[in-house]
């Protein structure tokens, strides 16, 4: 059955993301908040996350480009990014944010840049993973709705 295959494919993908450390149990809790009343829930959550993350990354880019780095603001944005990435279960991105916060609290310039590069990389991986999951969910729900109408 196509529906079962897609569901299995999605489960396998999520399992693999867990194994790679991209997602953790907080993601499972978010996924379980989906309900029949709002099939767009996951997409909306992931959009909110990406919006927050991209704003945070833009601010960090600005602060780290200054000739004199405002480490307090870098730390504050690392804090914010950690909060939002942990809320969607983005395990590796959370770790990268922790590194950035540590480096900025210690005012280590090179460490801050390296950690920020890691934050950006992990954000891209997480974003792509969440987008794939949201797209798969949408396809599954559309197919199920179509089958019910038949």
């Amino acid at each position, binding site marked *: 059955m196509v529906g079962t295959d897609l569901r299995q494919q999605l489960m396998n993908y999520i399992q693999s993301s867990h194994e790679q450390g991209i997602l953790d149990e907080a993601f499972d809790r978010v996924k*379980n908040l989906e309900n029949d009343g709002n099939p767009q829930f996951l997409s909306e959550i992931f959009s909110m996350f990406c919006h927050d993350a991209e704003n945070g990354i833009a601010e960090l880019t600005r602060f780290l480009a200054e000739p004199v780095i405002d480490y307090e603001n870098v730390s504050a944005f690392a804090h914010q990014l950690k909060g939002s990435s942990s809320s969607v279960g983005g395990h590796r991105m959370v770790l990268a944010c922790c590194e950035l916060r540590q480096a900025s609290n210690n005012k280590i310039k090179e460490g801050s840049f390296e950690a920020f590069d890691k934050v950006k990389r992990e954000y891209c991986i997480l974003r792509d993973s969440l987008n794939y999951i949201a797209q798969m969910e949408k396809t599954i729900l559309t197919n199920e709705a179509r089958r019910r109408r038949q």
Partner: protein
Amino acid sequence: MAPTIESVNQGNGGFEGNNKRSDRFVKATWKNKLTALVVDNGELCRVLERENLRAYGVETVAVETGEAAVELIASGSTFNLIFIDMYLPTMSGPEAVRQIRAMGARSKIIGLTAFITEKDEQDFFAAGIDEFFEKPLDPDWFVPIIREVDNQI
């Protein structure tokens, strides 16, 4: 993996949460109707905290600022539980908690933050919170808190 909770209702019936997420959650039944206020300026965190609590049967309202939380309490609203972020714009979490406690609110107040530091812990507890946790909300710690509040009513 679906989060689960132990059944907390020992009596005949109880207040069921507004829980339409049928198979994914064990229905939360509490002895009392429980209410919570979430205070977080981040939309993502605010929505997820609210939805997590609602999924476990707690009637939850969410606001963005400390000022909004203080205004709600000042207007007479009462909540069994308040979940409040440390870092809020203009009025900080600790300042909002101080004002809420000064009004005589006896809610169980749980402070939240992305990273707990010793200084933040001292400041927040001094302001009047009862518990302090790192985000995100995890049923492993918030369900026992809800159960404790339910048992105390």
